[in-house]
């Protein structure tokens, strides 16, 4: 194979693509749908993660203060806490604030608390975590640190609630990873096998080329290019389909059902992932054709 032949091989690939238009069209459809499946799953994961992020913003740690702590000591504690690496924000809740909140919780029954001369409830700091620490482990770690501080009586962070949310998300991620991994493999196999089918359907042509003295690379390159065209078109088509589905989803169903779930609504794939899908199309196209050629050679007609 010489460099001079490259234009010929490119032309041949394009002509091959046109000559077997129907076959290639079907292959592109299969490939696009495989990518729709993969990309759709990616979309699902991205959006669930994003929604879950909104949830875990709610994770906060409450540090109850020892009774009778001086205003200065409280202030000092506050700045020490604010300096901890996990901490994003600290809000002080005085004893009276706590009682007020408690009253609010009791609602009409709150009048029963009027006999109290002093708030029986402790003052506290409500601490918001930095995003990367918003997990059961992060909260636990922070709670440990806080417990060591002078003047902090008790720490609570809704252990139960957080643990459960955590478990659920972890479960989602785990199932998602396994299914996503299987999916990725499946898409790879579907795409490359589809190439294999179209290459296999042209064994006769390949044989004739061998008979007129074509080298292996001369036979393989146009098929590899053709596979790349298939993969490219399939990937682009899949992105188009996904985007159409996404548009439909956001405009039609989103408002009625998920309103208020999160301000931005649903997200589409970031452009990097879109580019990755296109790259995967090209790569899988090339690999698929090469595999198919190998297979076709290893099997007698």
């Amino acid at each position: 194979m010489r460099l001079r032949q490259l234009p010929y091989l490119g032309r041949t690939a394009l002509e091959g693509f046109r000559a077997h238009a129907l076959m290639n069209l079907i292959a592109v459809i299969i490939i696009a749908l495989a990518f729709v499946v993969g990309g759709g799953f990616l979309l699902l994961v991205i959006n669930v993660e994003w929604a879950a992020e909104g949830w875990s913003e709610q994770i906060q740690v409450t540090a109850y203060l020892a009774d009778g702590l001086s205003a200065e000591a409280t202030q000092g504690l506050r700045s020490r806490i604010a300096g901890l690496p996990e901490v994003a924000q600290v809000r002080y809740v005085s004893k009276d604030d706590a009682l007020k909140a408690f009253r609010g919780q009791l609602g009409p029954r709150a009048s029963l608390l009027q006999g109290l001369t002093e708030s029986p409830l402790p003052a506290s700091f409500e601490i918001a975590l930095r995003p990367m620490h918003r997990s059961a482990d992060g909260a636990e770690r922070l709670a440990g640190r806080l417990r060591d501080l002078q003047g902090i009586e008790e720490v609570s962070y809704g252990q139960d609630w957080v643990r459960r949310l955590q478990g659920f998300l972890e479960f989602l991620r785990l199932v998602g990873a396994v299914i996503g991994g299987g999916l990725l493999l499946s898409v790879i196999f579907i795409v490359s096998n589809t190439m294999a089918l179209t290459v296999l359907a042209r064994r006769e042509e390949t044989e004739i080329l061998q008979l007129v003295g074509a080298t292996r690379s001369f036979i393989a390159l146009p098929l590899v290019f053709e596979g790349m065209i298939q993969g490219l078109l399939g990937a682009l088509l899949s992105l188009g389909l996904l985007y159409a589905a996404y548009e439909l989803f956001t405009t039609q169903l989103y408002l009625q059902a998920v309103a208020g779930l999160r301000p931005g609504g649903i997200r589409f794939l970031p452009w990097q992932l879109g580019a990755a899908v296109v790259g995967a199309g090209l790569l899988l196209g090339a690999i698929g054709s090469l595999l198919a050629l190998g297979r076709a050679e290893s099997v007698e007609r």
Partner: protein
Amino acid sequence: MIQMYHVTKSYPGGVEALVDITLHVPRGEFVFLTGASGAGKTTLLKLLFCAEPPTRGQILLNGRNAARLRRAAIPLLRRQIGMVFQDFRLLPRRSVFENVALALEVMGLPRREIRRRASEALAWVGLEARQAQPAIRTSGGEQQRTAIARALVNEPYLLLADEPTGNLDPDISLEVMELFKRVNARGTTVLVATHNRDLVTRYPFRTVALEKGRLLA
């Protein structure tokens, strides 16, 4: 040019297509290969073209052992041998011109050179008017002539033609034979497998006859 020593070819089914063939064809000779249907003519040509390996025996082409060729060397060998297949072996959707040009494309010649030589070869077999038609859309005889043009276009040192006039009328058959003679006169060794008694008797070339896979003395 061609030296075959005790060559035997049996196909997987148990058919003995060739049995103990010893044959020498000197450079520049013109040889007819005859024999009844199933005698082994095509098989013999396929062995010379390295399209099938011999079961036993030695084949030397231009002094090189055909059985010991590296796989990568086979394409290079085939570019120097022209073969007209009994069933033509054309790319059905490619045009007549492209089918002929293909034998030059694989060699990586410049485009203009390819154009020139392919057009020339098509003129030899009288197919100028059909060159843009897809091969599948031409008549049997036109396909056969396309196959002949493809075999000759790269000026091979050895021409193997398998029943090259089976689909041609007597006039065109004679033209094709004259073409082969010209090619032969320029130094190409020619081996033509044929049933056409007219041709065999009309030309004074050496005739090699096969019967059930054996050479007739």
